[in-house]
Each structure stands twice: as C-alpha cells, then as structure tokens.
C-alpha cells in the first residue's frame, strides 16, 4: 500500500494522480499536483477495479438525467436489479403527472438472455404505452442488452410507428464508460426528442432550464425568479419536465445550463444544430445565484429585464441577510469537506461555505472533468485537497486528517461521516428542502448548522480514521 506523502493518506497505486493539494502561496493559475507534469489532476477515467468507487454506472447517469420527465414512460430493458435500485431514486417533484415515479422493467430472464430480449421488449413497451398513455417513451439499455445484442433501435422504431409517440432508445449499457457517458446518452436521447419535432419561431426573452431536476421543488423557485425578471421558460430539462415542452425547446432564445457535467452536451448539440447560445449557471449559494441571474439578464440586453433582475436580487438578499448572519456568527471558522457528483457544484459550494465564514478543506467529485477541476482550483483556498473519483477509505482518512467539522455529500457517505463523528449535509437526490436559490441558501445554512451544532457530538469521539482492520 502506498502512502501519499503529499496528502498524508494511503491510496491504491495508480490513484495518486487523482488527488492533489492546492499549494499554499501558489497562484490559482499555476497550481499543479506536486511533482507532476501533464494534466493537472487525473479525472474522467474509468474507475479502478477494487477501489470501491462511489460512482454508479453509465445507466445511472442516463437514468437520473431523464427520469424527471414526468409524462414519459421510462422502461429499463434489463434484469430486475437495475429497475429495483433506481425506483423513485431521484426525488424529483412534478406539478402534474407522476409517471416517472414508477419503475418499469422488462425483467429479463435467462431465456431472454439466451434467445434475445426483443420480443419481450416489444410486448412490454406496447402494453405499458397502452396502459399509461405516455407522451413519449425512453428505453434504457443495460449491461446485458449490450452483450446479447438486442436491436433496441429497431424495436423502438416499430413501436413508435405503431403507437404514434416518440420512442427513444437510450444507449446506456453500464460498462460503456463512467457516469459521464450516461449523461451523454441522455443528452443524445433528449436531442433526438427535440430534433424530431418541428422547430418553431424563437420566442423573445425566453430560456430553457437545463440541468435542474426539481429536487424539493427547487426548479419552481428558479422559474419564479425568471418570471419575475420578465423571462419566459420554454422547457425544464428535466426537472418537472414535460415532453411537449421539451419538443419546443429549440424555440427558446437561450439555454441556461446548471449541472454542467450532465447537460453541457445537450447545450452544445443545440448550439451546433440551431445556433442556440447557452450560459453556464449555478443556483447554489447567494453569490452564484445572483451572478447567474445577472449573466442571464446581461445576455438579453433588455433594460427592463436588467432592472427587474437587480431589484429581485436586492430584495431576496435583503430578506435572507439577518438569518444568514445568525448562522454565520455560529459557523464561522468551521471546516467542511465536499464530495459531490459533478465538480461544477463543488465550486458553488466552496463559495457558499465562504459566505458562511467556513472553509472547505477538501473538495472532490465523482465525475468532474479537467476544466471543472481548473475552476475548483481557482476558487479553493490554498492547501485545499482536491480529489477525483474517491472511495470511502480515502474520504475517511481525509475527513480525519483534515479535521473537518462537516461533510457534504450523498447518502453513501453519510454513515461514514457519522461513524467518524463528523456532521453531515445531504446535497444529493435525497434532500427534502430546497438548497438552491436565495431561500435555499438559508436552508443550506440551517442544514449545516443543525448537524454541526447538535449536542450529540459531545458524546461521540472523533474516531481515528480507517485504521487497518
């Protein structure tokens, strides 16, 4: 086992390049992992066998991006597990239909694997469309479908013809790469939906919301801001999404892209094919929220929009200032570790913690890419440990080594933090209170404070991390 001297933790040989420290004193532009040349941090690679990566698979990437489209049928072509473990996984709210909350599977069995699953897929699709009358159907391929060679495209085309709704294959075989490949597969499916519809006239002062999944109703909040600014939202992609809206997406004037890791691909395709511009935004933290709205307003070069946006920001910030100050007083000086799906969100979280007077000592992501990590480095404090595609042992060692007070991540990391005596904030699918937007910042502060300030920690010793078993 190799001990990583730079960071002071053990890593599997071959993983060293995935961890670096933003060196104290160096300027953001010049920071490189010590002793290494070439790319700054190894990322966007396949996970190492036996490393216990926190990542899921290609299928998962596609599933979480498309699933919130609430009036579409989402059929998983594969064995039962892929459907069981992703049922209602995303927690996306819908203001209308909730077809996305049902988990449909072809439940492939041995005989299907031997003789092919196409007949079962055809019948399953037909009966489900008959029963639920969806506006479109997405058919996800899983690992074995890629191996047994079912012709998904042909089956989908046949059913589309027979049923008169878009039936779109999603090429998401689990082994085809990492989660980023799944995002790409989802974007291709979305583009296929958009592109088969006739393109309408561009709607002035309008946007599509890309990369928000309406967890805890966050998208509704964002839509509310846009409406106050005087903008029209053509399509939500994909939170509280509707097929008919997405089909009209090419008529929006601008794509605003959050969750850049999952949705930039779609924005690029739309830029390429329709000349639609896009802006990368983030709704996490007051600074990024405000900057995003100003960027969007700036794009439209419309005086009324600009004024309304400035007023909106001023009134929202004024409304939350006293409560934020309350938490800032109590949280300042505390240290956080952040490990999230995409590195872009991590950037916003660093700023959000800074706004609370806290420091992020460790920041990492499952699927960040080189430019995301460059931004992370630019924003992070000197000395911050940056980690890609981490695993529980590395995270446990880092939490301990860096003496963090709170860990921000998803549900798999929660018990690791708790066992170590570290507070936790869920910033993943399971959150039940909006953490985006201006009001979300207060919720975020409250979440962080309610774990850090809990009296239970007085009884729980900080555990020594990940000693040998």
């Amino acid at each position, binding site marked *: 086992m190799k001990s990583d001297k730079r960071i002071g933790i053990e890593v599997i040989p071959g993983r060293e390049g995935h961890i670096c420290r933003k060196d104290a004193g160096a300027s953001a532009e010049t920071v490189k992992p010590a002793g290494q040349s070439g790319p700054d941090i190894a990322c966007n690679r*396949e*996970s*190492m*066998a*036996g*490393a*216990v*990566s*926190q*990542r*899921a698979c*290609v*299928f*998962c990437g596609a599933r979480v991006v498309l699933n919130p489209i609430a009036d579409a049928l989402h*059929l998983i072509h*594969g*064995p*039962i*597990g*892929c459907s*069981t*473990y992703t*049922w209602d996984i995303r927690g996306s709210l819908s203001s209308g239909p909730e077809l996305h909350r049902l*988990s449909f*599977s072809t*439940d*492939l*069995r041995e005989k*299907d*694997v031997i003789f092919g699953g196409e007949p*079962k897929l055809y*019948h*399953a*699709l037909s009966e*489900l469309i008959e*029963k*639920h009358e969806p506006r479109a159907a997405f058919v996800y391929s*899983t690992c*074995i479908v*890629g191996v*047994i060679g079912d012709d998904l495209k042909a089956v989908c085309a046949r059913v589309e013809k027979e049923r008169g709704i878009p039936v779109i294959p999603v090429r998401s075989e*689990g*082994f085809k790469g990492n989660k980023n490949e799944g995002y790409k597969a989802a974007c291709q499916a979305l583009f296929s939906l958009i592109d088969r519809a006739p393109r309408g006239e561009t709607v002035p002062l309008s946007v599509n919301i890309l990369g928000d999944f309406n967890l805890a109703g966050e998208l509704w909040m964002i839509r509310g801001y846009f409406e106050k600014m005087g903008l029209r939202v053509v399509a939500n992609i994909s939170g509280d999404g509707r097929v008919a809206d997405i089909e009209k997406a090419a008529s929006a004037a601008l794509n605003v892209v959050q969750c850049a890791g999952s949705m930039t691909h779609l924005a690029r395709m739309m830029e390429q094919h329709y000349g639609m511009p896009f802006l990368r935004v983030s709704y996490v933290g007051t600074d990024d929220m405000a900057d995003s709205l100003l960027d969007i307003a700036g794009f439209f070069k419309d005086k009324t929009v600009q004024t309304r946006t400035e007023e909106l920001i001023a009134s929202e910030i004024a409304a939350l200032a006293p409560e934020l100050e309350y938490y800032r007083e109590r949280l300042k000086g505390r240290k956080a570790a952040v490990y999230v799906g995409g590195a872009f969100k991590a950037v916003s979280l660093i700023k959000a913690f800074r706004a609370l007077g806290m420091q992020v000592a460790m920041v990492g992501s499952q699927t960040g890419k080189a430019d995301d990590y460059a931004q992370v480095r630019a924003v992070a404090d000197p000395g911050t440990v940056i980690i890609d595609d981490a695993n*529980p*042992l590395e995270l*446990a060692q880092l939490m*301990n080594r860096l003496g963090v007070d709170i860990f921000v991540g998803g*549900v*798999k990391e929660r*018990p690791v933090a*708790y*066992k170590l*005596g570290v507070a936790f904030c869920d910033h993943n699918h399971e959150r039940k209170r909006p953490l985006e937007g201006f009001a979300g910042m207060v919720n975020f502060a409250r979440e962080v404070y309610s774990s850090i300030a809990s009296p239970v920690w007085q009884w729980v*010793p900080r*555990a*020594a991390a*990940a*000693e*040998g*078993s």
Partner: protein
Amino acid sequence: MKSSASSHVSTTNPCRMCRPMGACLAFRGIANSMVLLHGSQGCSTYMRRYISSHFNEPVDIASSSLSEKSAVYGGAANLKQGIRNVVARYSPSVLGVVTTCLTETIGDDVRQIIAALLVEEPSLREVLIVPVSAPSYSGSHMDGFHDSCVAILERLASRPIPNNGAINIFPGFISPADIRHLGRILADFQTPAIILPDFSQTLDGGISDVYRRIPVGGTSLEQIGQMAGAAFSIEFNVTSPERQSSSALLESLADVSGERLPLPIGLRNCDFFFQALSDMTLTPVPARYKEERARLLDAMVDAHKYLFGKKVAVYGDADMVLALTGFMVDVGLVPVVCASSGDGAEFTRRISEATAGLETRPAVLTETDFDRIGSGATEAGAELLVGSSKGNHIARRLDIPLLRLGFPIHDRIGAQRLLHIGYQGTINLLDRLTNTIIAQQQDEYGNGYSYM
C-alpha cells in the same frame, strides 16, 4: 389510466432484488470479509446505497469495474486487479467474488481466473476467496443469500469433525436485532451456538473511537469450520430447494442432523422453535421464555378485537411472509394478499396450508411487483399493508396504513433494530400492528378519543 391486464409481461415497481444483493448481505455476516462484484461499476454502488440506506451503516462493496473492452475480451484482468486492490486495502480474511448478469453473460470463468491469480500471487492464498455465481437474470436476492452460505460451508465445513456439542443456526435474512435475540436465546439454553451469517454487529455497529475498514463482528472462519462438528442445525428456511439449504448440506457432507423450521414469528412458529431447542438440548425451556410466551398470549387477548377481520396485504421474502401470514391468521387478521419476492411452488403450497381455515383465500403472488400487489390489495379491499417501505406508494394511494418491517426500509430509521422473531419479537410486532390500526381508527373518529 386503463385497467391493467393480468397477463402483462412488463414489471412495474419491482418487489424483488437481484441475486448479487443477497450475496453481499450474506458475506457481510462473515467476520472480516469483503465482497467484490464482478461486473460493471454501478452494481456495487447501487447495492451499497440500498443496503446502507436501510442499516445506516457504511457498506463497502468492491467492483471489478468492467469497461467496454473487458466486456468484449473478458474481465480477467479487471477481476485480478480488483482482487489485488481489495486485499491490499482491506486485508480481508474472506473475499466473496460474486458474478453479475454481465459477467455471467460474457462467460467469464471466475474459478479459473482466481486459480490463475493464486498461481501468479501465492500470497493471496492467505485470503479465502469464495466465488459465487449470481446471474441477476435468474432468481432473486434470496437465492444469492442462500447460495453464498452454501458456498462458504462447502469450503470450510465439508467433512465430519468431532462433535463439539454446538447448535448451528442458519437464520436466513433477518434483522441485526433478531440475530442478537437468537444469540441470547441460545445462551439462555446454555448451549454454544454458531449463527451463520451473523451481521448483528457489522450492519448495526456502535460508535467507537476507531473507524474500521471492515466493521467488527460476523461469524469467524473458525466458527464456520466448527459447524461441521455441531450436534445439530436449525435453519429458518422452509421455502428454498434443498440445494440451497445450509442445514441439508451439512447433513449430507458432515453428518450434522438438521431441521428446517419456519421463521419463529407468531406463537405457533415460536413454539416449534423453542420445542425443537428444548428437544435437541435436552433442556427445558427457560423460565424467561415461558414468561414471554404468557405475555404474548396476554397481548394477543388484549389486542384481538382491534385485529379481528382486518384485511391485510403482506409482501416480502418468502419465509418472512409465510411466518407473518401464519401469525396473522392466529390473531384474527385476514391476509388477503400474500406476495413473495421470489419464486416458489413451496411458498404457494404453504400459504395455502396456513390460510386453509379462512373463508376467503388470499391472492398468492410470487416473483411479483408492487403493481400486482397494489391491484390485489385494491381488489380485496385491504385495510393494512405489511412489508418493506417500498409499499408506501400503494399505502398512500389506497389511504391505508403501512407497517414497515423486513427489508428494505428506506424512509424510516431504526430498521436494523426492529425485532421480529421470538415471543418478544412477536409481542413487538403485535403491538405495532394493533397500534397502527388503532391510530387510524382514532384519526377517523371525529375529534379522536382519549380512552379506548
């Protein structure tokens, strides 16, 4: 929404988990063990999340993280690297190497790959590497669970050894609290017991001052070896075929006589279990359990009027549902849907036996999904659901309560501490059931009431 045809080929809201999941759970009950799933990265992450959300414990499961190339040319290199890395990082005594649908379909010969690895790296021989075949496209998680127990016994307890007077218990998939309760019962019978698998600590650990890579607890390899010398075995599994029965295996390989009993839930099943223990150990049932039994009877009488005639839909793993059905019949509840996640003619036969006295027989569903359970519950006018948290959608739709038990419970805490078995577990269950019904009646009764 149109009405559903009964002969549909699709599955909606699965009630079944896949085979590798059960293997992961069983290995978790073996001391200092790890599992490596030979397949694509997502399987291990999904199962970790699923298990972790129920038990609120860290759950590390490795993956060989196959790529497109390995899916085409075979996963040997990934599997070998995966084993090396897991052993280097976790130093396990046992490593379950569990296949998935992908590696079963591409036809990797896992045994041969492991054999080749052990030649390349003899130091790995210190780790007991146990391959388990778990094609996710056949059977359910319970098949993976039982297969894993059988696989490890075949490696460690496959020939007779001198009698050590111990009792083997193969409890099946019950909660950590249940396993601890079993240990206590056996201790009260003053008989050494070996429970396999025992995840009472590994999936319900306390806070300690050291974070361990592999949590403490579990049945040790030495104990598993000693199972071949036990006086007898008790297995709570009456629904699996014989080849998946740990007690049958020990009987044939190591001459340890065994008995397969229903899960000790409900007065009747508990009596079977305590009687069997008493007979086998030649020890009278300890006073504590006679008192618990009497208290259970008292509780049944206290509760009977609230329960009588209430229609219940129950779903979950076959042995659990079977035991719950028997218990419900015995307290006057009326099971109207009995649904098993797995397949099984044996399940169907036994449910029909357990409900023979009812005026209306329940709908019996196997390898089912929540769509079918929901239809069954609706048609039969179920007033209560009993099973995992995944029935929550149905409960909300039908506006009936759901009593959460079994696995998984993802929307409440404390699932690992739910006691289902023994007289005491049955009392807990009875109280929870009854209070669920009373709470609903109280809510429906005008302004509620202060006395019953």
